[in-house]
């Protein structure tokens, strides 16, 4: 068997390798174009989902507790906007109330107040958030805690909205 005399099977079943490569690459290119269309559709779908969510309606208004029942420096847990969404209400001083979602923005563990360091602490992966703003201070979280907008109506503290990306 040498180069000048190809085997008999090759003479019987000749394969045009350059043509084979051309067809394979052409089909691969077509496949890539086919995958390009779903990417664009998914992008449009994300935009539509966001648009429908924003248009879905207002946040519910839920009473949390009378202001007189919340001592300065205390922490009160409540649920907002649904019963399955735990939140924390913090009374930092006489006039300052802050409320944040209790779900860590890293992997969803429950954050708890850390009195010593004056911050919110996620025990799962040692994430820390600022008490006054909810912004991440240390650890894996990169996004701030969702902030609950509060209103004082006739001495009762109400949760009226959630700011997913508070500035």
């Amino acid at each position: 068997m040498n180069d000048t005399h190809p085997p008999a099977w090759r003479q019987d079943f000749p394969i045009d390798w350059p043509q084979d490569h051309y067809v394979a690459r052409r089909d691969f290119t077509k496949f890539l174009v086919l995958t390009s269309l779903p990417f664009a559709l998914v992008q449009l779908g994300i935009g539509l989902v966001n648009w429908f969510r924003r248009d879905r309606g207002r946040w519910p208004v839920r009473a949390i507790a009378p202001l007189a029942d919340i001592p300065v420096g205390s922490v009160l847990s409540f649920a907002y906007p649904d019963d399955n969404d735990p939140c924390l209400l913090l009374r930092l001083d006489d006039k300052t109330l802050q409320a944040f979602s209790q779900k860590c923005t890293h992997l969803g563990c429950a954050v708890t107040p850390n009195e010593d360091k004056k911050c919110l602490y996620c025990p799962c992966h040692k994430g820390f958030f600022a008490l006054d703003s909810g912004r991440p201070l240390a650890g894996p979280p990169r996004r701030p805690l969702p902030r609950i907008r509060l209103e004082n109506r006739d001495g009762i503290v109400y949760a009226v909205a959630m700011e997913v990306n508070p500035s």
Partner: protein
Amino acid sequence: MNHSLTREQMTTILQGILCLVLFVVLLQVWLLTATTNAWLGGDDSVLWPAAAASAACALVNCALLRCLNRLTV
């Protein structure tokens, strides 16, 4: 014009188109990743520009596919 192209020339053109399509698809993957990350972080200002960019990428790929289909073996 296509009949005057040799097979080597067509293969070269095909490889060029393949590289462009691959680059555009990778750009779309990056767009989708960045958009999803921003959206989950609460930033929805980039959604529609990113969707428009991704749709433009898909159109570019369709145009390249049309060029590819004009090549005859």
